[in-house]
């Protein structure tokens, strides 16, 4: 395996971790105003992700840093090309991040309601934008021979990309609802299950519609980087099985299956893209690949040593933090504000 391929895989892993973990965070954030009827319920819902969301977001920050370090050409073109989309993403992440902290500091209904909706908006926009961005990365965007994105923000918006955004958002909401069902009990758990049931069918239907559109809109099914084999099929089966597990009230399994869907779908996208990182719609030869955007081998080697040394520890202590807060939350105990 070349160092470029290894770093392509590492970045894929970072995105998988990000979508899996921050996926349910976004889902919870979107559901807060709907599932929580009282202030206490809303606080409890926020606390289901309270100790985790920041570290989950770091998966994305690290993915960005890794892109910069390993594939500066990809980082530069993606971030300057998807300029306004990135701007909206930043506004969302800034609002959401402070809202979790600011919300509880004043005991006033209007204040809290305001920040609840900031959390909602700040959780809704990122998956929508990520779905749109991923769809565009697969579909291809106008990239010229100088590796520059020459389109506008509106070139990123199409029926196909919006479908990508919507299906990703719904998948995350489902993932979040199931996470809530694992972290709560009683009435909130019931509401979360009901939400999962209601959203589950839509998430499944739209995701499959998106796959069908991908067949028509992209070369993912014909020009395979690495043949993903049964991976996408398993992703589909996992998504179908969620419905079954929700009805059987097997929350853990249902959550595991939405997680599996997210993981396997992301793997599929990266395998199909390989070795390209951004497809040019103007000329296939102008596509950005891991080879024409990578750092030099020495830099990649240094990064490899650092990453392989540090990541096991990160996984251990992050895993440990979930274990510390493994108990279901309930309003019988005083809540951390």
């Amino acid at each position: 395996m070349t160092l470029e391929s290894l770093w392509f895989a590492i970045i894929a892993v970072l995105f998988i971790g990000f979508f899996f973990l921050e996926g349910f965070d976004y889902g919870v954030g979107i559901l807060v105003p709907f599932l929580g009827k009282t202030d206490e319920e809303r606080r409890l819902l926020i606390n289901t992700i309270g100790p985790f969301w920041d570290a989950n977001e770091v998966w994305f920050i690290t993915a960005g840093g890794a892109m910069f370090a390993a594939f500066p050409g990809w980082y530069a073109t993606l971030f300057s090309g998807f300029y306004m989309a990135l701007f909206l993403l930043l506004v969302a992440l800034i609002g959401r991040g402070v809202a979790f902290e600011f919300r509880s500091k004043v005991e006033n209904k209007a204040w809290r309601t305001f920040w609840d909706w900031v959390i909602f908006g700040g959780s809704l926009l990122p998956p929508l934008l990520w779905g749109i961005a991923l769809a565009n990365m697969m579909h291809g965007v106008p990239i010229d021979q100088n590796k520059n994105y020459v389109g506008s923000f509106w070139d990123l918006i199409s029926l196909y990309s919006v479908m990508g955004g919507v299906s990703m958002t719904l998948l995350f909401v489902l993932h979040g609802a199931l996470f809530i069902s694992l972290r709560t009990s009683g009435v909130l758990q019931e509401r979360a299950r009901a939400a999962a049931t209601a959203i589950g069918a839509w998430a499944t239907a739209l995701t499959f519609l998106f796959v069908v559109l991908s067949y028509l809109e992209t070369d993912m099914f014909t020009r395979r980087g690495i043949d993903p084999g049964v991976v996408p099929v398993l992703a589909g089966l996992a998504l179908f099985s969620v419905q079954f597990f929700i009805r059987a009230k097997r929350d853990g399994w249902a959550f595991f299956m939405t997680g599996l869907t997210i993981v396997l779908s992301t793997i599929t996208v990266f395998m199909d893209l390989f070795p390209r990182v951004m497809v040019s719609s103007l000329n296939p030869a102008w596509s950005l690949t891991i080879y024409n955007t990578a750092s030099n081998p020495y830099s990649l080697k240094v990064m490899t040593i650092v990453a392989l040394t540090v990541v096991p520890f990160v996984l251990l202590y992050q895993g440990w933090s979930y274990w510390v807060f493994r108990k279901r939350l309930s309003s019988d105990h005083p809540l951390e504000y």
Partner: protein
Amino acid sequence: MPSEVALARWQFGITTVYHFFFVPVTIGLVYLIAIMETLYVVKKDDRYKQMAQFWGKIFLINFAVGVVTGILQEFQFGMNWANYSRFVGDVFGAPLAIESLLAFFLESTFLGVWMFGWDKLSKRMHVASIWLVAIGTTLSAFWILTANAFMQHPVGYTMRDGHAEMSSFGALITNPQLWYEFPHVFLGSLVTGAFVVMGVSAYQLLRKRHIEVFQPSFGIASVVAVAASFLVMVVGHEQAQYLLVSQPMKLAASEALWKTSGSPAPWTLFAIIHASAHKNTWMIQIPYLLSILSYNRLYGSVPGILELQQQMAAKYGPGNYIPDVVMVFWSFRIMVFAGALMFLASAWGVWRMVRNRLVPSRRYLKWMLWATPLPFIANTMGWIMTEMGRQPWVVYGLQLTRDGVSPTVSAGEVLTTLIAFTVLYGLLAAVDLFLIARVVRQGPVADDHDDEPESLSPVAL
């Protein structure tokens, strides 16, 4: 409309200075909180727990803004400075990625554990969490400054096909620039945290409220402040001397020294600068001092701006290599004066406490309340001097700032985001200050015992 470069620079300046209001508070406070919680675990005295929890609240509000404005920092290179990113990503990206891996995961995970884990973890595990957060914030500073040190003084690279490639990781992390810059920033952060704690404590002590919490807080912070503000001057002095090696132009600009000085060189305390005419019309100078500051001896001349300009034009081709002298000169002076003032103020307080075992006088408390903005002024001015003094380079000697911008982003787009971020950041600052003021006014929440003012016990040191 201003050029894309000008707008992108304004955006970087505004968002970075803003981000750096919060970062030093985070780094400084987390160590103070860790010390307080350690005292709680060791002495089993609930006052220290109350302290850690009270300062923890201020820390968390501050941390939230620091984190979210930090995300923008990482994105901004790619968004506004794509050509810069392509030019140095090979070298510059690595410390950024390592910062995420090594520092961000550590601080965010253990801060979550610390916030929600008061009754879920043993006392030792809990205090260990805050120390791990402290280590995380420090590692974060180290790695981002590794990246910045490369921009100031590029090392460990080779040029290939028009961009810089990393050739020695060891050289990057042993960059002398880094080892002046990192201690300077780290110590400056400790001073900042300490002045925030002293300012807030002074406010409460003046109101004679929660004395059992704020008097020891004030004491601990004073000791940290006096030690750190002394060391920050020592390191700062060495850092300035290193400019003679790494960026003589920045040093000359910080002295508004147009012509190469005689020997011994006098230090300019005050000057009226006419940058376009390349001269100063009025100056107050202290003989010998610039030689002493530059070389630690009573003689030696320092190269002037005009001579350096000629040298650089000969080396890099025709062009204007002179930074904004007025800004560099004054930002440097304001930083130095603010720094010296902070040392004197905290030394005075500690000296009085040690000598007389007295509680701080009301007048001193009032001073320290009003001294709270000083570290913020010094931090901001320090970065303005460092970054504006490097101009016109983005990477010193390798890439001009104007060549670093994104080729496909329009001035209109940068202006849009510049306005939006400035407005958003302004609102955030207002809410942040409002909330911190509220927490300060409310004071600590007593756990078990009531919060009647207790007798004035000596400061716990």
